[in-house]
């Protein structure tokens, strides 16, 4: 392979072209035409949708007819095209949502422009001062109090969900006898099915009043209990993903350990857990993602005033998180205030994106190190 990069690139294009050519030659021209019509009209329908045109129904109808016809006559080819189109639709939806959130938050970022070293940076003012007041002068939209709240709640939730979740997963996967497992697993899945407002409502009517009396607080909103409630909500996610990771460790690895005379517990801690580490950390990170995004329980239980607790780590204050800010404010906000709520959404989106990339990275690294487990 002594080709220079440029010829290599050309050759690959040429190869692609020949392959496409061959594919076109080999395929029934009618099938090809049907797929082209179907995909073309879907694209046209999408453009019509973006332009809010009253004619969108026409290409959509054409797409349905062409696809329906193609499905009857050339199923394999049409199925390939349709599944590809559906994947694209998912990605395009994501793209549109992201573009919309960013576009809506621009006024707030512009409003909160701050100068650093003589350069004015839009949005910097949201992170360099701590005042949020959308009504009285000076009107400022700092996101720091809410970021602090989200960090507090997420940290406490992780401290609850990670050890409990991993321990429960280990018990279900390795220790429990089959009958117990059959009973416990559905139980945990039912826990995942309880709507978050139910947790929030219990928190609001039971935990908050109790905390107010028990800890002599002025009002019962605390990050501590919101974090614990959210941790419980994230628990099922952690348990089921971690349990999947633990059960997918090949038996041969454990058998080897047992054959060398290690006890069950030794095998678990030195073989099963390290081997499934990537899956278990992915489980915890998914739980963290759930905790960051949790809205209802936080909105109902927190006080709803953007402030930073003093000292920073005092968990007996409960002010506001990024999600509860949006949930509480969306109805009455307008103008820059509304845009600032979208800015909170942008911060959430970027955080969750980083988390997701982080978990992918950890997983990839562990897979490399363990040489292709799973």
């Amino acid at each position, binding site marked *: 392979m002594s080709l220079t990069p440029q010829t290599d690139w050309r050759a690959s294009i040429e190869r692609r072209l020949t392959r496409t050519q061959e594919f076109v030659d080999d395929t029934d021209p009618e099938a090809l035409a049907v797929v082209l019509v179907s995909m073309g009209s879907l694209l046209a329908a999408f453009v019509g949708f973006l332009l809010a045109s009253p004619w969108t129904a*026409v290409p959509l109808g054409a797409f349905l007819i062409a696809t329906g016809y193609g499905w009857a006559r050339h199923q394999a080819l049409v199925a390939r095209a349709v599944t590809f189109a559906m994947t694209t639709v998912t990605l395009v939806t994501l793209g549109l949502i992201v573009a919309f959130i960013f576009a809506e938050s621009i006024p707030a970022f512009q409003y909160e422009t701050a100068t650093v070293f003589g350069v004015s940076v839009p949005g910097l003012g949201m992170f360099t001062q701590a005042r949020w007041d959308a*009504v*009285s002068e000076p*009107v400022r939209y700092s996101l720091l109090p809410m970021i602090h709240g989200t960090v507090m709640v997420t940290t406490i939730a992780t401290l609850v969900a990670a050890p409990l979740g991993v321990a429960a997963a280990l018990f279900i996967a390795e220790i429990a006898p089959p009958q117990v497992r059959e009973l416990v697993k559905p139980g945990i899945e039912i826990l995942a099915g309880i709507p978050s407002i139910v947790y929030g409502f219990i928190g609001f009517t039971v935990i*908050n009043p109790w905390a107010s009396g028990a800890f002599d607080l*002025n*009002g019962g909103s605390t990050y501590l209990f919101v974090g614990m409630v959210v941790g419980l909500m994230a628990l099922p996610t952690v348990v089921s993903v971690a349990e999947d990771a633990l059960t997918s460790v090949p038996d041969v690895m454990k058998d080897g350990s047992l054959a060398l005379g290690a006890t069950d517990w030794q095998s678990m801690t030195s073989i099963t857990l390290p081997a499934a580490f990537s899956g278990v950390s992915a489980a915890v990170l998914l739980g963290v993602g759930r905790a960051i995004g949790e809205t209802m329980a936080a909105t109902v239980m927190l006080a709803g*005033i953007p402030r930073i607790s003093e000292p920073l780590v005092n968990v007996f204050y409960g002010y506001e998180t990024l999600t509860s800010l949006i949930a509480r404010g969306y*109805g*009455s906000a307008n103008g820059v205030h509304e845009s600032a709520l979208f800015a909170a959404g942008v911060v959430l989106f970027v955080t969750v994106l980083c988390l997701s990339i982080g978990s992918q990275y950890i997983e990839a690294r562990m897979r490399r190190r363990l040489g292709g487990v799973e």
Partner: protein
Amino acid sequence: MSRDSGRQADAVSRRKYLLTSAAVGAAGLAGCSGNSGDGSDGSDGGSEGEEGNTMESGSSAPATVTAEGSSTVYPISNKGSSYWNSNSPASDGEYWGSNDESSVAGWDQIDTDQNIADYFASLYGFEATGERSNPPFATRVALSHSGTGCEAVRDGLVDIGNSSGPITAELDISEEERDENYVDHVVGRDGQPVFVSQAIYDAGVEQLTGEQIRGIYQGDITNWSEVGGPDQEIYVVGRAEGSGTDTSFRLNMLGDADAPMDVDTRLGQNQQVQQVLQDNDNAIGYMALAFSGSGIQAIAIDFEGTVYRPDPDAENTIFDSEYPLNRDLHMYTRINEETPEGTDMREAAFLNMFLTEFGQKTFVEDVNYITLPTSDIEAEREKLPEQA
């Protein structure tokens, strides 16, 4: 029953709409095949079809009147809508009309043989159906927030926008813009009494001055002992930032719509305020009169020498329109090309129902709001188009 009828009438109008749009679509298709590339024609046809659907009156069923907005106005609006959709006959006695056993409030001013919705709709030229549960047109009320309701009426999503705060503050528009684009129908009044936890009331805090409340809500007074109560911190309950309730409290109590506040919690809904005041023994909050209940007490307020008491028999009461925390409850309609007066016949027929003695008693007073004085009712009726 009333809900069913609403759904039925709704289904009819939706079917009609589908038919209309299908016809337009077909016409458009025909136009397209005959003369390709002429798009403007088709889109004109489309909008005409839609207008026709909403503006139709008299002969065929008119479109449903839709309303959306404030949770404070909702009880009035929704009760009115339920009564309307039921179209009870005049022999009912309980909901409409009179019989041997009972008659509705303000009946002597109405005294008709027609069903409830038939009667009010016929005042504006709609044909009576004469059938229970089948009003001449249906009404539907959705629950959201004042700001959402104002936005919905601005964007033409609903006919009536319910709001507990003035639309100028909700949409951040000038009074000129408001007069140009909206008609403000005030249907009732809401007192926002200040409530305290039962324990505080029992400990002797039965009355506060306007100054003291201002001090509490701006963070200058933080302990009940400063206002004659027990030595306990004050848990100050505010309302969602920028909401109708928040804005009018700042305006009426703190003197300015964007006056600074220092509160311990902000809650979105009246029910939550009620719950928090019951759960804590040191809380103060303000909320719609309709949500008073056990475990909380409304207090008297001394505004510049006049004491407004929560007792309806007192000389000055929190139900008076002079009470500074009272606010108007609005139903906004939109001025546009089809309705330069801002209120079309359907909306007028529905709104007029609230502006009668019957409507004020049944839909306003019975859900714990404050009725409008006669002179205000006259002024509100002036805003509606001529009756048929």
